[in-house]
């Protein structure tokens, strides 16, 4: 069985609001010096999900990690390999730049096809529920549609049962159990739990694992379908929302006095 985890390198989503800036003119986030990009947390969980399946049957399950990005994205492939993935694929080409979710899904779907054409059919594709920069959550389902595979989103638990996959999918007020035949695509919810740590030993081993680098020409796809050329999305504006709320701090000697003032204000505003 061959599992493909699709991962993305992004601006650290945990950076403080106070240092986050955008250039409205360039419609992009202002780079913060010294800030290293990271693997999207949901994608680290996608690798974790793949590893949980692999651990149950390590001899028969192969896990490949793939990313579309610049040369710098090799860092997150190494992280995936150090988590236990067997192989990695880097999709790096200036032609891929400016992709939206549609163009990205096409590129990743073609990469999965190429792995299949090389005799290594992909049985399960795993992505994070969304990349934690754009927060779009479309690419995984797009890959499924392009490859005509069933897909399950927001997966928090998964196991193989004979030839099919049984997953738990998050609902707003609980979860549901879904059975799907393979090949299939799943997207991972953060409720899956923390991804495993990478040990120094695994990291050393990862350096010797095979990583392929493919350019657009290596894929069976028209250049008009990928990168900025293949994008449907036009970014009209990017901005940081501002509020015009002036906070009134309630200060007094005692907690009782603060509470009394607040209660009175809330009562006057008919909020309590």
């Amino acid at each position, binding site marked *: 069985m061959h599992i493909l985890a699709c991962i993305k390198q992004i601006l650290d989503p945990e950076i403080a609001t106070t240092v986050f800036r*955008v250039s409205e003119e360039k419609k992009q986030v202002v780079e913060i010096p010294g800030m290293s990009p990271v693997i999207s947390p949901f994608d680290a969980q996608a690798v974790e999900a793949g590893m949980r399946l692999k651990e149950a049957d390590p001899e028969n399950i192969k896990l490949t990690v793939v990313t579309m990005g610049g040369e710098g994205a090799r860092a997150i492939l190494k992280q995936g390999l150090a988590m236990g993935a067997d192989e990695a694929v880097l999709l790096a080409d200036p032609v891929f730049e400016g992709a939206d979710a549609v163009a990205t899904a096409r590129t990743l779907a073609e990469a999965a096809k190429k792995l299949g054409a090389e005799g290594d059919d992909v049985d399960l594709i795993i992505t994070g529920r969304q990349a934690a920069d754009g927060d779009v959550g479309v690419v995984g389902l797009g890959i499924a549609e392009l490859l005509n595979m069933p897909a399950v989103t927001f997966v928090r638990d998964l196991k193989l049962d004979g030839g099919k996959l049984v997953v738990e999918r998050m609902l707003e007020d*609980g979860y*549901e159990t*879904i059975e799907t035949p393979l090949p299939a695509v799943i997207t991972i919810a953060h409720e899956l739990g923390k991804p495993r740590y990478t040990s120094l030993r695994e990291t050393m081993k990862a350096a010797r694992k095979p990583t392929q680098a493919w350019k657009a020409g290596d894929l069976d796809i028209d250049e008009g379908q990928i990168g900025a050329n293949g994008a449907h*999305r036009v970014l*009209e504006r990017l*901005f940081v929302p501002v509020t015009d709320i002036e906070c009134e701090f309630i200060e007094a000697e005692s907690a009782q006095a603060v509470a009394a003032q607040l209660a009175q204000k809330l009562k006057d505003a008919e909020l309590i």
Partner: protein
Amino acid sequence: MAKNILVIAEIENGAPSALTLEMLGLANELNDGAAVHAVVLGHGIDGIGETLVYHGADHVHAGDHENFAPYMADAWLPDVVKLAQDTDPDVILCAHSNIGWDLAPRLAFRLNTSVATGCEAVEREGDKVLMTRACYGGKAREQVSFTSSPAIATVKSKTQEALKEDSSRSGEVAAISSVLEDSDIRARVVAQHREQEEGVRLETAKTVVAGGGGLGGPEGFTVAKELADLLGGAIGASRVAVELDWCPHSWQVGLSGKTVAPDLYIAIGISGAGQHMAGCANSGNIVAVNPDKDAAIYQFATYGITMSYEEVIPALIEEIKMHKGS
């Protein structure tokens, strides 16, 4: 002239979801004289079509079959795709929910177009459909349009106004003749487990008391819950508190939790990270209790208290009891 709008309805507890009605309100702002179509798929859905009409649908396409409930993407898609082709919309509105967010991207690929997820605004500018949504964990907003049509948007809860129910409104409710074939259904729901929510529902509460990392431990939620109960409100939490296992996941407010917009949101020990504010910034009034005067939450708060919550919340509970008693 504008083209039609198609709304993909969702059913919750036997009625259209609040967000479905909000989407119909938005559709009536966008249609510019053209028709508002709605599709509703479910099982045992008598009367739902009429409710959609009373809230602004001109044509309701109703599909009643056991395969349509619970929702399964493979079961819904063939009919939704066909209706999208038949009704010729240039905007399709889906809920930003675990149904709509699951359905809309597949619909987009089948219609050879694209989707903007989590939209807070959808508007027209000339021939363009402009969609505004949160990105970068709620720290920024982007406005996007598509070079393809129809534009599909998943609409965020509590960002649009529903029309007042008007039973004199006329519209047509027609049963669809389904094109679904059993072999279309690949991924199947075999069981659902829904938490019985105790007390007031978070999404519809008029008052929400939410706790975060600043509570210092699960016991902090006891006093927060007491305040919520006293105010007839619901209890919420930040991602930090949920990830520390101080409270159930279903309490989470924010980008990967619930969206709330109560009249009063009392945030205790919450810093106000973008991803949290994306779920509560539309509240009528925010009261923040946080010792850090520079916390981002204060940019959104009407009232701020920098005293420790352990002192001030019990005192507030006393005060409110006095007011209630008088």
